[in-house]
């Protein structure tokens, strides 16, 4: 297949980002279009222009002079969104070891999309490991050895430069309940030794932040505290608290904190979340589930399964039927040169497993697209093939949930950034 794109122009697009996008329209036609915003369109057409989706449908006219991509026999869908990763954080940057509570830490200040130190070439950023699995957007969080690791960021996996890949920053404040923070703390003989201490430390911090907000409101000349400012963003519901909680007890603690301080909560991990499904649903708390085919891991090679359980395959459907919004994510980190953190490459296959356990195909796909976008607060930009949204579009060789299917083309902001077998080596 010849490359249908010829002329690239640089356009300035919203949110202060500058991306390369095409003046000339690109039309993908003939494929089965899964919009994630309605029913599938057999023999559908997607029109992209200026980095945005401009039209989607069965009877869409092709703008004059457009580049045509024939997707006959193929599937077209929005870019996959991995709602929880630690990708791009070097080994020493996964966890701040000096302090179990670092709300002032921002992941964006450690995020490295530039590849191995001393390797690679200059130019636009392309995370081909993730792009090859169709992942175009991901949330990057600090890893889970601290009670409060810091502020996460939503990035795209391709863009012209570091500023150009940032979609939302900060996008959440990451906290962890359960064993991982205890493990490190015990080795350093500091708090938290117990779950009680984890929750007490967070509660105390939220109270401090409330006091800080109040005092700052009365006297703006008070010295700034970056950590309390970050917690304040959670209190004012500017960003959600992302709390990793797997056991029903830890999820209860997270729900109690959220009720007490009135913040928006996203439960990460959620291995036993189905036990709490009614309450999660009534409180409208979404869950970002770990992988189904592997133990839920962040950065341990062989996890203690008490705290990193494999997510039960029935969990997504159980949560869904109770009315809980569900995303399925990889929580992947990078493991050095042999394993460059490309779990996103397998996210679709992993999520497909849930399809055997009560999730419809569309439910499964929602869990890695529009639901993830909504949970990350970026659904105005990504997550579905809807006119006005970023032109993050995949062309797949077949049914997205089949093991035999490959992602053949990936467009981010209307630009062809990955083509199977052709662009990895660039």
């Amino acid at each position, binding site marked *: 297949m010849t490359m249908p794109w010829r002329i690239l122009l640089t356009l300035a697009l919203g949110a202060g980002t500058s991306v390369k996008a095409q003046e000339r329209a690109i039309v993908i036609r003939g494929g089965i279009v899964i919009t994630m915003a309605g029913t599938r369109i057999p023999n559908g057409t997607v029109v992209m222009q200026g980095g945005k989706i401009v039209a989607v449908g069965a009877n869409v006219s092709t703008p004059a002079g457009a580049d045509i991509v024939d997707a006959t026999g193929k599937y077209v869908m929005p870019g996959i969104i991995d709602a929880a990763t630690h990708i791009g954080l070097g080994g020493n940057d996964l966890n701040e070891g000096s302090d179990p509570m670092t709300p002032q830490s921002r992941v964006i200040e450690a995020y490295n999309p530039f590849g191995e130190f001393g390797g690679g070439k200059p130019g636009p950023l392309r995370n081909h490991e993730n792009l090859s699995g169709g992942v175009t957007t991901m949330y990057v969080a600090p890893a889970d050895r601290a009670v409060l690791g810091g502020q996460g960021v939503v990035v795209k996996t391709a863009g012209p430069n570091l500023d150009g890949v940032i979609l939302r920053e900060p996008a959440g404040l990451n906290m962890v309940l359960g064993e991982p923070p205890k493990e490190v703390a015990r080795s350093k003989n500091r708090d938290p030794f117990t779950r009680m201490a984890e929750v007490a430390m967070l509660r105390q911090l939220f109270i401090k932040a409330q006091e800080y907000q109040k005092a700052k409101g009365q006297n703006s000349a008070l010295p700034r505290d970056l950590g309390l400012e970050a917690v304040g963003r959670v209190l004012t519901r500017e960003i959600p608290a992302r709390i990793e909680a797997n056991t029903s007890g830890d999820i209860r603690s997270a729900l109690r904190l959220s009720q007490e301080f009135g913040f928006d909560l996203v439960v990460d991990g959620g291995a036993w979340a189905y036990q709490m499904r009614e309450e999660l649903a009534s409180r409208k708390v979404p869950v970002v589930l770990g992988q189904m085919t592997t133990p839920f891991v962040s950065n341990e090679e062989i996890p203690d399964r008490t705290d990193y359980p494999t997510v039960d395959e029935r969990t997504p459907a159980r949560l869904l039927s109770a009315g809980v919004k569900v995303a399925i994510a990889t929580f992947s980190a990078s493991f050095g040169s042999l*394993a460059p953190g*490309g779990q996103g490459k397998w996210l679709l296959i992993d999520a497909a*497993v849930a399809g055997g356990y009560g999730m419809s195909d569309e439910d499964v796909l929602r869990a890695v697209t529009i639901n993830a976008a909504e949970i990350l607060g970026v659904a105005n930009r990504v997550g579905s093939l809807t006119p006005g949204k970023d032109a993050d579009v995949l062309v797949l060789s077949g049914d997205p949930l089949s*093991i035999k299917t490959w992602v053949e083309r990936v467009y981010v902001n209307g630009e062809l950034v990955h083509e199977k077998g052709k662009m990895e080596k660039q």
Partner: protein
Amino acid sequence: MPHAKTSGIAGLLLLIGLSPLASQSEAVVALRGAVIHTAAGAPIPNGVIVVTNGKITAVGADVAIPSGAKIYDVGGKEIIPGMLDNHSHIGALSTDLNDFPMVVGPQHRFIDALNLEDKDWGEAVKGGVTTIVTGPGSGENVSGEAVVIKTFGADLGKRLLLEKGGMKFAMGPKSRERYPTTSMGVAANLRAYLIKTKEYTAAAKKWDDDGKKGTPPARDLGFEAMADVLAHKSYVRAHVHSATDVMTLLRLKDEFGFDLTLHHSTEAYKVAAEVAKRHVSAVVLPLGDRIGLTEDAMAGPYVLWKAGVKIAFHTDAPVISQKWLRLCAALAMRYGIPEEEALKMVTLNAAEIARVGSRVGSIEVGKDADFVVFSGPWYEPKSRVDLVFGDGTAIYDRTLEEK
């Protein structure tokens, strides 16, 4: 490759332990209507399997079903042999896997750590894995002897296929966290132990040859166990990632003549011809949806297969739950291994590499009646295991579980 005998009491129990309680009429089971992937020939559409007393007694398209047989109509389904996970660590507490201070510990036997209450046995059955190799390691240079065991049943004697299921070596990187700290150190350590084993054997033989006079040489369980490896009664199962360490193992094999299988085998594809030349099998964990290997490494099994290396996949359970063994093979299909070949890599190949290919691994007359009924193609993530048969009995039934 010489086959080790099932040893000791376990073997005896095995011989007398075949379905003694089932009456003749109950002991005949037939499945009909499904596509049967035997792992030993072309798929049989609309096939029949007949099981008598736990063994497969007929399989094919035109097979008469004996009267009185318990019949399962499984039209529209797909049947594959019970899968064999060639490398795992389930069935023991995690604190019983590694005896870290014992850098070379061939005297350790996994049978002494078996925990039949481990819930992972049930997870394996649910995923269609009916036989596994499970063993110690891989924190030491030599961790001990694995077992080959079925994943179901209360009678250990009946479950155990091989008590001497292979000697676990580990070439790092994990073992390098402890002494010795380099590849050179590991190699020197292994070589020194193998030489001492030969000296030990020679001393024992000399005492024998000299008419067993006086005090016999002191016995050493470690050397005895390693001597069994050198005598081909057992074989080396080597945890190895880097191509360099693969070559070290091949050199050791050339030098000492033991039977060798590679495990993990991450970079074995880089030296595929060297591996193939020595008829060494490779058990591979593509780790694909685990930590995301490079595309080159993911295509490694295909490279090995093309080079003529017999390969199988493993889960390293509990690293990956055994119920996803089939997906390890399915991922390999993406890189060019044909469907029926990929199936063999979790069934017949895996069984042959584990030295139990005469008992399990394919749907053939005379073999144990272990097989799995899938709702759709075995390799698709969305397909479900509907039924699992072990020794001719339905040991998992999804409809019962969902009630």
